[in-house]
């Protein structure tokens, strides 16, 4: 029997897609939350950060509460053929919810430390707000946004609690690396579990190494 690589493929696609989703939504909320009135901002901030401090299983519980097959939204979605429970793209939803606060908070920190006079001078020069956002604000906040993206990706890749609640473990269908490790260990397949732990370690090391390299390159670019 050939080795089943499905959990790796599934984990990577879940992490990659949720990371892209979180990248845009995180930046969007980070940018607009900063301009809201203080009270609304405070409430929104708590709500958006909650998934970071709640146990992931609790996040999974809430997701089931909203998207469960017998819940109104779940029924409605099922009618158009979308089912988040026990599907691999449900894993994308779970990972995105859990990883979102990491992107949101780091991006917000980066935006808050952005020198406002840069945006103002762009405006007085006649540059459009869209141009200022993508060509001046984003490059200036590049480091924070990059850090947030990497953190969100790593978090999505390692997601276990919410994922197992929402999509469970079905080999070849919804299995991810982290749920596979647990499943193999539970069924006394120590060798299999060890192998997947090694795969996970390898990916994490590669991610962290590339972040460090990017940072080093940036420092060099600033110096020269």
């Amino acid at each position: 029997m050939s080795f089943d690589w499905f959990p790796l493929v599934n984990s990577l696609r879940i992490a990659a897609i949720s990371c892209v989703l979180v990248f845009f939504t995180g930046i969007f909320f980070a940018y607009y939350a900063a301009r809201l009135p203080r009270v609304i901002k405070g409430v929104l901030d708590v709500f958006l950060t909650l998934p970071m401090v709640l146990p992931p299983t609790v996040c999974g519980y809430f997701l089931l509460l909203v998207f469960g097959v017998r819940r109104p939204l779940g029924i409605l979605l099922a009618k158009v053929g979308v089912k988040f429970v026990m599907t691999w793209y449900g894993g994308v939803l779970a990972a995105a919810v859990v990883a979102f606060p990491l992107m949101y908070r780091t991006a917000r920190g980066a935006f808050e430390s952005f020198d406002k006079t840069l945006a103002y001078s762009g405006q007085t020069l006649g540059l459009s707000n869209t141009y200022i956002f993508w060509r001046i604000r984003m490059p200036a906040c590049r480091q924070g946004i990059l850090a947030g993206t990497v953190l969100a990706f790593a978090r999505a890749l390692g997601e276990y609690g919410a994922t197992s609640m929402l999509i469970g473990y079905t080999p070849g269908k919804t299995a991810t690396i982290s749920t596979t490790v647990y499943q193999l260990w539970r069924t006394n397949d120590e060798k299999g579990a060890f192998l997947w732990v090694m795969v996970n370690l390898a990916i994490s090391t590669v991610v962290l190494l590339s972040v460090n390299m990017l940072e080093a390159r940036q420092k060099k670019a600033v110096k020269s």
Partner: protein
Amino acid sequence: MSLHVDIRKQLGSFTLDVDFNAENGVTSLLGASGCGKSMTLKCIAGIEKPDEGIIELDGRVLFDSENGINLPPQQRRVGYLFQNYALFPNMTVRQNILCGLRRERNRTSRQQRLCDMISMLQLEGLEERKPAQLSGGQQQRVALARILVSEPRLLLLDEPFSALDGHLRDSLKVELRDLLERFGREVLMVTHDRNEAYNMSRDIAVMDKGRILALKSTKALFADPGSVQAAVITGCKNIAKARRIDEHTVEVPEWGIELETKQRVEEGLCAVGLRAHYFSPNTQYNRFAVHFAEEMEEPFETIIQFRYEGQKPDSPPVWWRLTKDKKPAQFPGELGIAPANILLLYD
């Protein structure tokens, strides 16, 4: 060509309430930090919104609260030189200057104007550098190039020299003054440095706690600041309460003296100011017995603090400032001051 500003805006502990006109040439807003002068610039540029009022530039309405007009900064055509120059750190000098040229659709003329500006501000050879690789003076020139190339109708300068080392300042002042003359339109400059304001501007508006105390031509302002706050802001060191005696005489109880003035003393006089440079042991006018109190040396000048013979004990000593070569070997027993140099200050 003219700028008309008449705006109000609540700012924490005080209200910004300014009303002035500026015409061709450099006008300075002079005042302590936090007096609302930068906020005034931001309102004109459209970065901040006044609570109410009107802003007009060359007959074009930029802001009018009554008619609900508030042009975005992009449409105001007002150039703004920020204190830190606000160059885009991720772009080269060339790209920074091109940011001011995005309205120009024609490629050839855009390139032409870029080249003209680079040579006008002597930035040849720096085109591919990043802002972090430039000196403070070069950064200022790039920021100016970027603004001037966009052909603003009005130029705002926010503390243009505060980010520069002292020894660079004077030569850049001369450069900037020549450049502004060539620009040929209204320039509004904000500064807390009275020397800078004096060097650069034709008119000066003195600001204090959100209000304009006086708007006069530079020389007239320093010769006659008019109010106590304006006298302090223009650097007058010796100010004391005074009472009108007659048309050319005032009494200063704190110093125990009566001064003869050249200017007519009007009703409502509240204080007089004596500039520290104007005392002389040789003049016969307003000559009174004085006692030495303290001395402080500067590289090229000396500050001598003295007290008038009849001066009240709780009033601070009077400052006399003179260049070292003029310093008498012995402290004179009497000092005078010309009647023309008595500043009459009103409420």
